[in-house]
């Protein structure tokens, strides 16, 4: 069946055999479809591993989000629970939730909020969205529908088709006999419904659900959540607030305003006489950056995740987050894509799994796969450093496999070590001036992934600065560092503990300067003073004396430099750049250009590149351009026409344009054909949005872009 038609624009195709369409998509076949001969053997394995790894990650994400929402909504839910008791004069109790500008995350925030409200406050919850609430009528209907629908027990046995019908009927013919209980969606109906519901709840006390019996007051509030308040039309919002405040005596309505900019937006939207009817309370949700930090810590760096992002990929993702959308959800989605790409493209990713499953995986490796592993850059670099003999033994597949089995689990332990070392280092630098490793741990982590940190200036400078700390400061810093690594139970924490003990145990008294020494010194000073013939020589001698005395360190200073040297050595052992690990390609994904092209679309530049230099895409020899602005007659017509149009100002004379086109393509065709070619190209340029027709002059078009590229 063709998909082009003069009248129809939507075409549905159904599978001939009904069965297979309902089968879930099996992505492993696509994994295989993309692989070369070597990768095809592990395709299914990789697909499975991706699924399980992503499930782990997803679970970590949802757990984290649950936890975060718990803290955020806790106060607000308490306030709403108590809102019924607020007396009527005080106005409608309104919780203003400042959500921040990360719009894409709000769906999740409000869904979770509604769930929590239903579970903990009241069954009567309505979530209003600006898109479907353009008039007062629609808003009231949406609100009343949701409030009343929630109160009723939904019968789960209603078949789906019936629900469709029911919805339809209710919207169009509200008073059908069989569905009278769903009265028209108006405020009086809501009152009636609410009172009825209260009665049924009140009379059989036994049936009161959950903890309501203990905490909830007699009446349950009706909560209306306004998602993204700024998007609503002020008129609708004002009217709704006024209407609801009229019913406040009969209905314990309370509002939740989701505000994404700042609290004053409420006052900008609502004039004083309206906002006077509200009693506003402000609540803050967590900052997106804070969420991200937590997320990275809990998900990306979790020891249960076998998959790791490389430095450049992580930086790209962070950049997208910080400079583009502030959306944690998008970050997770991008992370998922990285993971998918890793398992999709890298045959080595077959070994990216929990250490427990590694043995099985290594057993499965075929000869080709082993060869592929041996060809990994990191492995090759490692092998090159080995002795000739050893290298030779590793050429044998069996030995190599054993070696893999020995090395691969180390990837995970090494990452843990890196994290511990880095956390310690970050805690050490946190108090130092200048935020050498950044203000957030993710920055330090990214730095460690990108560079060999111990060789960096930041690292050296950190230790220089640490070497200047006073005793109290050093103690505090070490305590912080110990706190940061205490959970890991590594050697580093014991080291820090002993160091801390040593600092504390150091004798407090200043070292007694021996009498002999002091008298000697005094004599020396006196000598110098005598010998000094000029002011300059005196200064010099005093300076040299001072330097001599400074060179002698006091016990604390000696201890400090000893401790720091020890710490430095230890950290250098821990903080190793992942790209140096052999087999890191199995678990680390760092193809940043791929990710960037997929996640950050550049449709305009792809179109313009193709137009300005088609040889880049066609890869033909005939259209190679020496200069970006030159034209070749062999180029596709559209490119020629495009390039000619770049030479024009705002208006383009069609006739002249065509003559120029004719001059470029030469006389190979007759006039009519050239005209047809030109006409088609102009239509295409119009379709692409480069030009549009204009009435300003006959047979002219207006150019819509500027610049020349």
């Amino acid at each position, binding site marked *: 069946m063709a998909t082009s038609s003069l009248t129809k*624009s*939507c*075409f*549905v*195709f*159904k599978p001939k055999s009904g069965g*297979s*369409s*309902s089968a879930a998509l099996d992505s492993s076949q*696509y994994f295989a*479809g993309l692989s070369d001969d070597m990768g095809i053997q592990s395709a299914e394995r990789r697909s499975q591993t991706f699924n399980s790894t*992503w499930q782990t990650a997803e679970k970590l994400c949802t757990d984290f989000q649950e936890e975060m929402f718990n803290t955020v909504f806790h106060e607000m839910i308490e306030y709403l629970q108590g809102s019924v008791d607020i007396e009527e004069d005080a106005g409608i109790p309104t919780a203003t939730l400042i959500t921040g500008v990360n719009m894409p995350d*709000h769906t999740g925030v409000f869904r979770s909020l509604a769930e929590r409200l239903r579970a903990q406050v009241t069954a009567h919850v309505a979530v209003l969205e600006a*898109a479907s609430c353009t008039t007062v009528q629609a808003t009231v209907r949406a609100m009343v529908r949701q409030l009343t629908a929630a109160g009723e027990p939904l019968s789960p046995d209603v078949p789906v088709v019936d629900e*469709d019908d029911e919805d*339809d009927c209710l*919207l169009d013919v509200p008073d059908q006999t069989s569905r009278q209980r769903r009265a028209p969606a108006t405020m009086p109906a809501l009152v009636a419904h609410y009172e009825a519901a209260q009665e049924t709840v009140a009379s059989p006390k036994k049936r009161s659900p959950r903890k309501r019996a203990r905490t909830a007051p007699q009446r349950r509030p009706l909560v209306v959540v306004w998602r993204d308040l700024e998007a609503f039309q002020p008129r609708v919002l004002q009217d709704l607030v006024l209407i609801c405040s009229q019913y406040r005596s009969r209905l314990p309505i309370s509002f939740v305003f989701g505000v994404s900019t700042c609290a004053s937006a409420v006052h900008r939207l609502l004039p004083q006489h309206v906002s006077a009817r509200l009693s506003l309370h402000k609540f803050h949700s967590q900052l997106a950056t804070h969420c991200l930090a937590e997320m990275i810590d809990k998900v990306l760096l979790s020891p249960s995740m076998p998959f790791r992002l490389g430095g*450049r990929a992580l930086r790209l993702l962070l950049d997208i987050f910080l400079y583009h959308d502030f959306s944690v959800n998008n970050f997770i*989605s991008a992370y*998922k894509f990285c993971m*998918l790409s890793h398992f999709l493209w890298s045959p080595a990713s077959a070994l990216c799994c929990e250490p427990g499953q590694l043995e099985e995986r290594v057993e499965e490796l075929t000869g080709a796969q082993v060869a592929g592993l041996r060809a990994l850059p990191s492995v090759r670099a490692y092998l090159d450093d080995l002795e000739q003999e050893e290298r030779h033994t590793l050429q044998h597949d069996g030995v190599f496999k054993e070696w893999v089995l020995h090395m691969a689990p180390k990837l995970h332990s090494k990452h843990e070590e890196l994290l511990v070392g880095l956390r310690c280092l970050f805690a050490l630098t946190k108090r130092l001036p200048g935020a050498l490793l950044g203000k957030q741990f993710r920055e330090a982590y990214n730095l460690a992934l990108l560079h060999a940190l111990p060789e960096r200036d930041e690292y050296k400078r950190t230790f220089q600065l640490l070497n200047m700390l006073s005793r109290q400061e050093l103690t505090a810093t070490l305590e912080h560092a110990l706190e940061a690594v205490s959970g890991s139970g590594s050697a580093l924490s014991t080291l820090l503990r002993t160091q801390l003990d040593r600092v504390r145990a150091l004798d407090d008294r200043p070292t007694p300067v021996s009498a002999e020494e002091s008298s000697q010194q005094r004599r020396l000073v006196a000598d110098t003073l005598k010998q000094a013939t000029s002011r300059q020589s005196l200064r010099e001698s005093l300076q040299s004396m001072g330097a001599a005395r400074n060179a002698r360190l006091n016990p604390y200073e000696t201890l400090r430099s000893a401790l720091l040297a020890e710490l430095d050595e230890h950290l250098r052992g821990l903080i190793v750049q992942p790209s140096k690990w052999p087999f890191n390609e199995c678990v680390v994904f760092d193809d940043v*250009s791929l990710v960037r092209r997929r*996640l950050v*679309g550049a*449709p305009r530049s792809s*179109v*313009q*590149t*193709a*137009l300005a230099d088609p040889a880049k895409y*066609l890869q033909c020899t005939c259209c*190679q351009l*020496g*200069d970006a*602005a*030159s*034209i*070749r*007659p062999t180029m596709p017509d*559209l490119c020629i026409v495009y390039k000619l149009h770049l030479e*024009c*100002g705002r*208006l383009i004379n069609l006739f*002249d344009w*065509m*003559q120029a086109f*004719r001059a*470029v393509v030469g006389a190979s065709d007759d006039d*009519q*054909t050239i*005209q*047809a*070619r030109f*006409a088609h190209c102009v*239509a295409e340029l*119009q*379709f692409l949005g480069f030009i549009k*027709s204009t009435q300003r002059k006959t047979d002219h078009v207006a150019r819509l872009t500027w*610049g*020349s590229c």
Partner: protein
Amino acid sequence: MNSAGRRTRKDSGSGDNSSRTMRTRQDSTIKDINGVLSVRFLDDADALEKICCISKTAPKMSRVGELLRNSQHLISHRAGTPMTVADPDSESEPESPPAQPNAALTELNSAQLEVEDTVRGTAVFGFQRCHRRSHLRRVAEEFAQKSPVKTSAADIKSPGTPRRGCSGLPASIGSGRRGGRRPVSRTVDDRNRSRSRSRSPPPARSRSRSKSRSRSRSPPPPQRNGRTPSTPKSAAGRTPQTPRGRASAALPAKTPQTVRRKVKLRLSKLKQEDIAVSDDDDDSDVSPLEDSSEDEYKAPMEEEEDDDEESEEEDDEEEEEEEASTVPPAAVRGRGGAPRRRPELEPAAVSAEDYFSLHSAGGPTSNHTLSRLSEPRLSGAALRALLDARPTDHAAERAALLTDLEIMFPHWLAAVSHGFNILLHGLGSKRDVLERLRRQHLRERLHMVVSGYHPSVTPRQLLLTLLEEALDVPAPPSKLEAQLEAVERRLAAPGAPALFLLVHSIDGPMMRAEKMQYVLARLAQLPRVHLLASADHINSPLVWDQHKLAQFNFLWFDATTLLPYTEETSYENSLLVRQTADLALSSLRHVFKSLTPNARGIFILLAKNQVERASDKTFDGMPLSELYQRCRDAFLVSSQVALRAQLTEFRDHKLIRTRQSHDGVEQLTVPLEAALISEFLASCEDS
């Protein structure tokens, strides 16, 4: 002269070496030479030893020549014959007689003048045309006279590195060149004013021509180190380029602007690299093309931003050296297994200044209209027939692009099956891509195709089709919101099928509505709906806000196919295509059939009258009273009331249009062209 001295110093060290390596490179592939050729001729011709190498590409030249006007065929053949003999290894020996190419050159110039005549109409495209034409004629004449001198001059010019090696020469050559350039040299202000024009061909063309003329006047310098390339060869090498220069209508006059622009570009690039992820130097994905462009921008960076023309030339030279050396080897073109590398895209270098120059300059356009053509607007059918008759260029390459995309299908499907949606962008119709995907992989799956470029696609239609045909809902709800909910509920039910939504031109004219995108975003969000869409418009990303983008969860794929947008543009009211009245005619026939015989008579009467008076310019409709009179005469109506009743019916069906004339008389016309009406009348008489 300061910069000239600088250049001489700089070049004297590296010149010979680089030119030698250059030559070996050029020998390697013909393609390279082609690349050199285009730039070489038009920009500066002083490193003639390079041009010598071109002589061995004679067959290539003649192929190029075929593309030119008939008048130039002869020349390229003539230029070709001696060159085929040329041995690329013995470049230092003069080989072919000088007279032929020179004659060819002369002829070419006169041929070019003819071309100029045909292009005369262009105001923008033929910049400074009168001035240039007389200038060109002068040049041609000089060429004709001085052709023997020319050879010696070229001989002089060519040895080794004339500009580079010899420090005594520049004074004469420099002044000569400057004199030659005078006709086109413009002040900075002038350039600023007509920046958009500065890329137009004439300056470059006349510059190169005048340069060679000036060169012919310059005194012979001492011979250098015996590597003197032969004159005939250099001339022959250049001959075929001249038509090329004419053909490639826009080669930039290398103003300092270009230098400045590149510096700016480079700076912005550096800055961007600082901000965004920068260190993917070792990316295997970066194509060699990208590298070359990178290098290209480094060169001007070292240049100082001065208006001295010499430095530009130097710039040109360096650029083109790099260009020649970094042309990707043919081996890069992967046809087989691995998908070919899509070029890494550079950020479009557009400076804000360009905007103001575009809007302030607004150079006058000529008053030519399409009526100068024999048939100003082709009909759609004729257009298609003409285009179909013509073989498409780059057919193999375009097919290769398409097959490369096919290799990516599993990737798309894998991504789609894990909750991502696919958006294809890039130049060229992507209908074929999605169609192939559909045919190859989605045969056994429930899928729906939406033509976003179709002028009648609406959210309601989309949802109704989805519900009725795809999900088998017998009586779908009528409200949009309810429909969406129904779809959501349907697809959330256990055992529901996965639905693939293929949307051509998700940014099509009708798709840009907020409502449509809202519906699509809601659908795309569903776990069982997999959206694969294509976007064509350059401003398409403006359709989506953050929230929608997050709902769509797109992965962007560059799917440049360079295929013509035939289907997509067929619905659009193209500027150059005549609107066919087939539709109007057929609707007229249908309505006409349902009329009573008397009513038909009235209409035919009206139509005939209009056809008869088609040539009358003052005719603007038949007065109602006259029509009534005639109808009465023909016994079609008996009263004016009856006539009015009929006319109301006509008006309702848009068969006629009434207009009040200035004296208050109602005048009736049939809103169709006279030709169509007579066609209609003829068909009426037939039946």
